């Protein structure tokens, strides 16, 4: 039987590695889910043929390209268009009509990965009559993935499954009108991009965005420990206008993350919340 001690050493070495990354490069993974970080770093050590996290730490400190690989490992950029289509129906029914009552609408898409969700939202807004009356701030801490989001080019194979999702989400148009196919890729229409601002933002270390009407942050909080989840939910509360909406991932909840009860559920099952009136910090 393997010594429990080697597992303990592994955790110590992991802490040292995360500390080193933070001190040298400013990326702070110390409050991420430890099982997730452990799993991804073990995979990196195996792929690179290293012996231990300590060896990885040495490389990360002296070779920035190694840091880039580790960043990529720890930021899971997996995403889809109209993921959980039934939830998009809820947004069409509950959120769009409220947004329509504002003269100008500000939406923050935190942890937008390669942009599939942002374009889904842009389509929803267009179909809801909000085109040109809104600004979507799409942010992620991973620069490489933001570049992909800006390009808005996706594989046609993926687009096929997105088309089915779009239809199930209550789409009122023809999905192929929103992109141009070229060889085996689809390029999202320029009109969809004109209301979107892509930017670099780290939820752990950067500050709030003012007076948003809707914040979308799905499948990002699952990577954080409870303490960091709380901090980020409070950041969202501070970034929202009164009555603003928060939409999180289908397996996430605010049960432990909102001790001040800044939010109330709109449709709990759809993980849609609203900042209470009278709450302001």
């Amino acid at each position, binding site marked *: *039987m*393997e010594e*429990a001690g080697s*597992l*303990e050493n592994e*955790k*110590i070495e992991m*802490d040292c590695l995360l500390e080193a990354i933070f001190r040298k490069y400013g990326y702070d993974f110390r*409050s991420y*889910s*430890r*099982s*997730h970080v*452990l*799993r*991804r770093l073990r995979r990196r050590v195996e792929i690179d043929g290293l012996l231990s996290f300590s060896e990885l730490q040495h490389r990360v400190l002296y070779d920035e390209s190694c840091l880039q690989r580790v960043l990529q490992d720890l930021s*899971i950029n*997996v995403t889809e268009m109209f993921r959980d289509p039934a939830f998009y129906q809820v947004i069409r029914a509950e959120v769009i009509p409220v947004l329509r009552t504002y003269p100008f609408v500000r939406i923050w898409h935190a942890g937008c990965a390669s942009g599939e969700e942002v374009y889904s939202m842009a389509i929803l807004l267009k179909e809801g009559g909000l085109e040109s009356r809104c600004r979507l701030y799409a942010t992620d801490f991973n620069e490489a993935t933001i570049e992909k989001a800006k390009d808005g080019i996706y594989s046609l194979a993926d687009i096929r499954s997105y088309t089915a999702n779009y239809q199930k989400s209550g789409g009122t148009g023809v999905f192929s009108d929103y992109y141009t196919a070229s060889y085996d890729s689809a390029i999202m229409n320029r009109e969809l991009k004109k209301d979107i601002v892509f930017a670099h933002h780290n939820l752990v270390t950067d500050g709030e965005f003012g007076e948003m009407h809707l914040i979308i942050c799905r*499948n990002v909080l*699952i*990577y954080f*420990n*409870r*303490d960091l*989840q709380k901090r980020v939910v409070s950041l969202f509360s501070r970034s929202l206008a009164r009555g603003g909406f928060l939409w999180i991932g289908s*397996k*996430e*909840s605010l049960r*432990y993350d909102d001790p001040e009860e800044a939010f109330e559920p709109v449709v709990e099952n759809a993980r849609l919340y609203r900042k209470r009136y009278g709450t302001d910090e």
Partner: protein
Amino acid sequence: MKRATSDGNGSAGHFPAPSQAAGLVVVGVSAGGLEALKRVLGGLEAGFPLPVVIVQHRRSDSDSLLTRLLSNWSGLPVSEAEEKEPPLAGHAYLAPANYHLLIETDGCFSLTVDEPELFARPSINALFVTASDYWGPRLIAVVLTGANADGSLGVQRVKARGGRVVVQDPGEAEFPVMPSAAIAAIGIGAVDYIARLAEIPGILAHLAVAS
């Protein structure tokens, strides 16, 4: 039995108490799983002393139907595992479709959407490895019917950390590939039990209280 604590999983290394009593059952199952789970969960009695955590491979868009079916068949309450919740004794949990289910370093559940492993999300290996990190010798891992080799790496890890491994008899399994691969991965001598579905609930009840 030690109950999972939640300290926000911030601080380093807190391990389960050195007691040898089992703390958690993990189950991996793929093709043919519905019938197999019906028999295994159906055979566990209410008040089973451990949490039972299940990865059943399924389509990425499948809904809560499986959970409802299993609830009807089992003496234990069955629900989908929820992010950052501690697994409770006498309760069965299913990994949600399209997410990997991990056991966090404080014993609670953690979900991720990183790439499928061996074409599977949820991945049996991901659950087994992280559960074994936390529970070590106090983990009981069960591999049932399936048409791929997910779980093999997981049982290797479970054995390396001194846990128990129960595998469905491939001769009986609707799809023998997965149980056969698990047996081959650790060697037949290292498997604690190779058993038929009808026997597995009894074995689990025995292992749960044995020390």
